[in-house]
């Protein structure tokens, strides 16, 4: 079983959901992002999702777009992202990588899988790669023992849902709302329905992302999902902070609040 699977199993045994926290690699700097993700782990985030910054992130809202732009303007490269993954994996927390497809294709799909595995990454979340186009990635992830997280959406038909989860390994990412990343005032009504539809076709754990930003929202989502995925709200802690120390403090505070949320699910 993958390390992600172990994390989900352990949390399930504790009667709680896994907390996944996302941060773009190289934001605000290479060292800064390692410090941020390490702080998240220390404050109770179970799994770190490292997003490889990309010039055209169509699934991301303004907060992650801005953070990605800052990372790219700072000159971060795919090789840096792999170094960051290695450093964060060294904390002991499982690290999953989220990436748009073109950087992987450009690196070379098999070479990327090989180097990701060597860096200690567990696998990929692919927001713009659907299983229909993933032949090369299916082969490379098998060859290098990596997990594959494809997205399912409230608009997915039953047929696509079944097909998509069949190609997943590790966990399934359920997008809570029809939209892009970004914290929202309300949690989604569509998400619990999507999670139960997904559970009908797979035994894999189901993580819910898009729009979760507070401890209370994390508790709500933990009430029906196996994993709670938080991105923009964490990124904003660093983006809005006057200096690095304040950013790390805000990040620790929010991480702890979210960790508390997943331990006290609303049912």
């Amino acid at each position, binding site marked *: 079983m993958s390390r992600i699977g172990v994390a989900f199993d352990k949390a399930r045994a504790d009667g709680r959901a896994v907390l996944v926290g996302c941060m773009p690699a190289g934001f605000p700097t290479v060292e800064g992002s390692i410090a941020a993700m390490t702080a998240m782990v220390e404050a109770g985030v179970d799994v770190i999702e490292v997003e490889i910054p990309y*010039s055209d992130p*169509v699934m991301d809202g303004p907060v992650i777009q801005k953070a990605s*732009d800052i990372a790219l303007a700072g000159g971060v*490269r795919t090789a840096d992202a792999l170094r960051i993954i290695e450093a964060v994996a060294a904390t002991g927390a499982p690290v999953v990588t989220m990436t748009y497809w*073109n950087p992987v294709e450009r690196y070379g799909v098999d070479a990327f899988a090989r180097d990701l595995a060597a860096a200690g990454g567990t696998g990929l979340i692919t927001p713009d*790669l*659907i299983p229909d*186009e993933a032949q090369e990635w299916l082969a490379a992830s098998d060859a290098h023992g990596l997990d594959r997280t494809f*997205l399912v959406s409230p608009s997915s038909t039953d047929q696509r849902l079944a097909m998509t989860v069949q190609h997943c390994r590790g966990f399934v990412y359920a997008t809570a709302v*029809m939209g892009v990343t970004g914290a929202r005032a309300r949690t989604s009504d569509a998400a619990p329905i999507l999670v139960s539809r997904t559970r009908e076709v797979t035994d894999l754990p189901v993580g819910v992302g898009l729009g979760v930003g507070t401890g209370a929202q994390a508790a709500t989502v933990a009430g029906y999902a196996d994993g709670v995925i938080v991105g923009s709200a964490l990124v904003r802690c660093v983006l809005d902070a006057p200096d690095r120390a304040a950013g790390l403090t805000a990040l620790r505070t929010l991480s702890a609040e979210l960790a508390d949320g997943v331990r006290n699910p609303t049912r």
Partner: protein
Amino acid sequence: MSADALAAPYPDTAGHFGRFGGRFVPEALVAALDELDGAWRTAMADESFRGEFAALLRDYAGTPSLLYPAERLSAKLGARVLLKREDLNHTGAHKVRNVLGQALLTKRMGKRRVIAETGAGQHGVASATAAALFDLECVVYMGEVDTERQALNVARMRMLGATVVPVTTGSRTLKDAMNEAMRDWVANVDETHYLIGTAAGPHPFPAMVRDFVRGIGDEARQQCLDQIGRLPDAVAACVGGGSNALGIFHAFVGDADVRLYGFEAGGDGVETGKHAASITGGSTGVLHGTRTYVLQDADGQTVESHSISAGLDYPGVGPEHAWLHDSGRATYTPVTDTEAMAAFELLCRTEGIIPAIESAHALAGAVQIAPKLAAELGREPVILINLSGRGDKDVHTAGEYFGILDKEQ
């Protein structure tokens, strides 16, 4: 059409043109793309849809557009030049064909809102026009840089009742407008159709857009036969995303003796890195939902494109062109800003026609191929050029370029 292998039904059912095309999109959009694919296939097989589309193209858009033998230009080029006058269409470019087709489909799908991206503003204006005609809500995403260089078209869209949203992310040009439109679509896909303005994007857009604009070539092919009793030796078009070029190429793909030339925006010159020639100067990648030639760096980050022509200023190209290039059926060559503007002036002065700067790239390309074709064929070649649009929107840019604006203008 002949039995040429390239004339086989392409793309495949999943939208692949050889190794190009396909769908690289968030899962959230797949249901809408499948719905669109189904609606398009059903519509194209439906006599009443085809009749409605044909009537709109004729009575509203003013097609078939003329095929004009440009004699004074011919004399300058040493070639017999036929201009396909898409500039005379309603809204001033070939783009109206695509938007009318997609707006009709939007109605059939029961959606009440359209969104569009635009560079030059031509597609935005055409979309706003169709939205007004079909009583659809219309939101147009336009890079902030482009809203400045195409202010007149921004005003046009607003007059037609569209909301223009200046996009301030990334390079603030067409590619970023497309990102923003995609984000809108993911969030509002139930009631919204994304009216993509060129033969790019995820399947079925490249093939569907080609189908809606293929009338350009179908008409021109027949007009050639009627007017000169033969097919042209070469067909020339500018290539941004690639719709006008595919529109005129498609009818000739099976005619092995007809050479197909696509002219990309060479900007300051491909060697300078400041250009928009995705096929000549790019490499295989995935952008905006499709696999194609892309301007990108070593890490797969999209590189900003440069062109004097806002409508060609895009770092990708439709996947069918990538495939026509790889197969050798069509030839793609860059044309610099300087060469395009010289051809712009040439057409103004020889024929009294002010072309869109996009179309001036096709004219400049024809200037370059004319002597080569003449040498190869040993006679005066016949060159069919797609004059994809008129230059009204470019008067300011061209006026500045030629230094002919009075100070206070």
